[in-house]
């Protein structure tokens, strides 16, 4: 059999890397344009559109996911520093919302616990496998944190990423219908709930509805990530004892 020359192989490798690096922003950009065309509907989420486009392309052409990911890793790598960057708005909201922390922090922690525990046990109760249950448990945390948690407890990070995005879309779509839960519109509580249950996508939506809701959502996003990272490994250990 005729093997390609080393130079040709290097050329092929470069093309592969370039394919992953360029395909991701291109698909995401199409998603952003599409959402704008649909008047900012949360259902047409750019991340979801990009995943669907790239997924369809890979499945129809037969290009292995691993080939795409080896190039797209450059983009994936930036999730870590972006997560660290969340510290800047988090520190700001901890300072400005200081007088609301006594009610917000326990409420967000309760929301994290309900989300992680009910997610894990509902999957188990309805006959899902452990791997799926452990992928479900961290879904309310912001995606990069959720992926990290899933990896640590034996879940499947890609499924967690998809679930986290879907949970965010679910919250973003229903948030303005929940306004009348209390006697009056309670933007701080709604914002905190949005951040705790739907992380990034829901936080963006909360900012669209009200500035106050948005800043509470940002606070909840950070605190919920922390709470989920502590709670999910404990819940998983409990589940394994069963």
């Amino acid at each position: 059999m005729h093997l390609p020359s080393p130079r040709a192989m290097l050329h092929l490798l470069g093309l592969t890397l370039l394919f992953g690096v360029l395909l991701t922003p291109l698909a995401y950009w199409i998603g952003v344009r599409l959402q704008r065309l649909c008047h900012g509907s949360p259902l047409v989420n750019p991340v979801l559109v990009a995943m669907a486009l790239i997924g369809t392309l890979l499945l129809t052409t037969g290009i292995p996911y691993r080939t795409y990911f080896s190039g797209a890793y450059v983009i994936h790598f930036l999730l870590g520093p972006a997560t660290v960057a969340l510290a800047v708005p988090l520190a700001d909201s901890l300072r400005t919302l200081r007088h609301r922390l006594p009610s917000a922090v326990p409420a967000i922690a309760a929301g994290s616990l309900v989300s992680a525990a009910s997610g894990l046990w509902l999957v188990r109760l309805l006959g899902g496998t452990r791997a799926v249950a452990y992928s479900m448990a961290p879904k309310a945390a912001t995606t990069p944190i959720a992926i990290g948690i899933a990896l640590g407890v034996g879940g499947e990070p890609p499924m967690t990423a998809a679930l986290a995005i879907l949970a965010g879309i679910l919250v973003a779509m229903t948030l303005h219908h929940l306004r009348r839960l209390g006697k009056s519109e309670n933007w701080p509580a709604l914002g905190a709930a949005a951040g705790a249950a739907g992380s990034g996508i829901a936080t963006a939506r909360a900012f669209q509805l009200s500035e106050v809701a948005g800043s509470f959502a940002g606070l909840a996003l950070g605190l919920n990530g922390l709470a989920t990272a502590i709670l999910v490994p404990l819940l998983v250990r409990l589940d394994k004892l069963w």
Partner: protein
Amino acid sequence: LIPAILLLIGIDLLGNWIQQRLGLPIPGALIGLILLTIVLCLRPQFATRQLRSGARLLLLGMSMFFVPAGTGVITELHEIQLQWIPIVAALCLSTFASLLVTVWAMQGLDRILASRSFSRPTAQRSE
């Protein structure tokens, strides 16, 4: 801008290093997030305009950074097909349960705290 982004990458790597050394179940990036939050709460002047614009840039692109990992679901389509009922049901129910609990807990706590500070006027905030 570039030093700020390099700093954030450095903190991320530091978090990962700590996570591996101590064998923590918490993701390394989250450890970095906690460390930087503590520093910024203690020393607010550390959040320079440079750091802020670097952070804003990364946060702006954050949704796009999910795409490579998220696209990995195509390797799990078979599993999702087999278990779609528990997946969809758990996703919807637990998300709404978490929303309602957070809203109600915060409203309830606000009411309790308000009534307590009302009955003891001396305990009111003096900021």
